[in-house]
């Protein structure tokens, strides 16, 4: 396949728009994620429309659907895990601050291996 690969990088200097280059990177990441969200939205929309054309009123069924207690609990658990992943850096930072355990353990580890 080496005969058919494509170049992805752009020759030239990339401008920096913000004082902290991390903000520039975040802009790129947010919009790349927004692009994938648009892809998912379109997939679901397509499913609903195809099902609708076949007489399965998915859109209406989805609008009517009410989760039972178990489903609600499972969803809540999923949301909490998801939020935990979203804020993993914050939690790590917090862990470090409350006890300095991470740093102390790391220093012990360095000693052990040197």
């Amino acid at each position, binding site marked *: 396949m080496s005969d*058919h690969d494509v170049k992805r990088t752009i020759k030239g200097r990339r*401008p920096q*728009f913000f004082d902290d280059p991390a903000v520039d990177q975040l*802009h790129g990441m947010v919009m790349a994620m927004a*692009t994938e969200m648009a892809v998912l939205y379109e*997939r679901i929309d397509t499913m609903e429309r195809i099902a609708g054309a076949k007489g399965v009123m998915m859109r209406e069924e989805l609008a009517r659907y009410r989760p039972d207690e178990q489903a609600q609990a499972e969803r809540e658990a999923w949301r909490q895990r998801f939020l935990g992943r979203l804020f993993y850096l914050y939690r790590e930072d917090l862990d470090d601050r409350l006890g300095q355990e991470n740093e102390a353990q790391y220093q012990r580890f360095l000693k052990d291996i040197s």
Partner: protein
Amino acid sequence: MGSSSNAFAAVPQARHAMLVEPERDELARQEFVRSFKAYIQSGIVPGVHATYHGEVKPSFAMREGREPRDRHEIRQLMVPHPVFRTYASMQRVSQELLWDTVLDSVERELPALVDKGRAAAARRGDGAPLGSLVLDPSLTPPKYVTGVDIHCMPGGYCGERGTDDVAVGALYDRGVYLYALGMMGPMNDDIGGSAAKYLRDAFPDFRPRRILDLGCTVGHSTLPFVDAFPDAEVHAIDVGAPLLRYAHARAESLGRRVHFSQQDATRTNFPDGHFDLVCSSILFHETSAKALPAIVREAFRLLAPGGIAVHGDLPPFWAMDEFNQFMLDCETWYNNEPYWGAMREVNQVEVAVAAGFARENVRFMMAPSAYRAAAGHERGFEAGEFAPGNAWQVLVTRK
């Protein structure tokens, strides 16, 4: 402001054998990026205009007792502003995403595209090729083409990897449509189409026998001249081999006869006086201070007496106010278009006179957009990035 949103009604790109066919998710990504660009134009650009006119300019005037002098001074005031930074950053990100999402389709289809290119060029099973393709592996492309990837298109115009590569042609064809938000029509051909229509209207008796298109890329604006002057022999040149392979295959698959060759527009191998019509479309702003006059001189050399050269591009700075100049000039700074701004300062009439054209035979004017006139898309000029009004700038010179 923001009244131009209705101009972004999506006109699907016209299909042909060489055009990539995005899969469902690829298409969703590409459509999203096009929508993102349209949103920048209709939802973010008006805020930048409002910030300048409502905040930055008045406070400067208060402080200094005068208005900002020119686009350079406006730039100094605007670059630190958070509204402008977000706009400019998002514009850049949209451009990077644009090429990257199209590259997914190009990469997936490339082996087939290369084969299709070979087949289309040979018109296998469909008689002999209509036109021709002559490549020159000894040609060194000019620095202004290879120094940066113009408009951030990975690979630029000359990127070549495998045998019979057509990737950058495929990338450009699809990418330009998304970039132009469909405003150049389903065939991306509005610049050539408008110039050809202008010529037919302004010179009704003009019947060119031979036509040369300079810097043709994939032939978007070459084909309207084939249609406008069906009896003419049409030639087109560019410096990138993959572009020309793609352009030839595209023209053949669309049933248009064009003779493509790999040549530098400042010094072609055609004899003096060989052409009745020499044209170029959005070529000037991607050249250099040295190359632009050299191209006009070469056009003069190539024209037969009575022949016409027509060069189409986006509007020059004098055709807009200082703030729009500043906005348009962002392409120079942020989109790998190093000559974009400087070109808009060049007095093209004087360049043409210096090249040998008689002053009374030089016109510099706006040619109404043939596509937007036909489609009923009226829009004013409010610069974001690629945002033509209802007309293209044309330099028309007669020998």
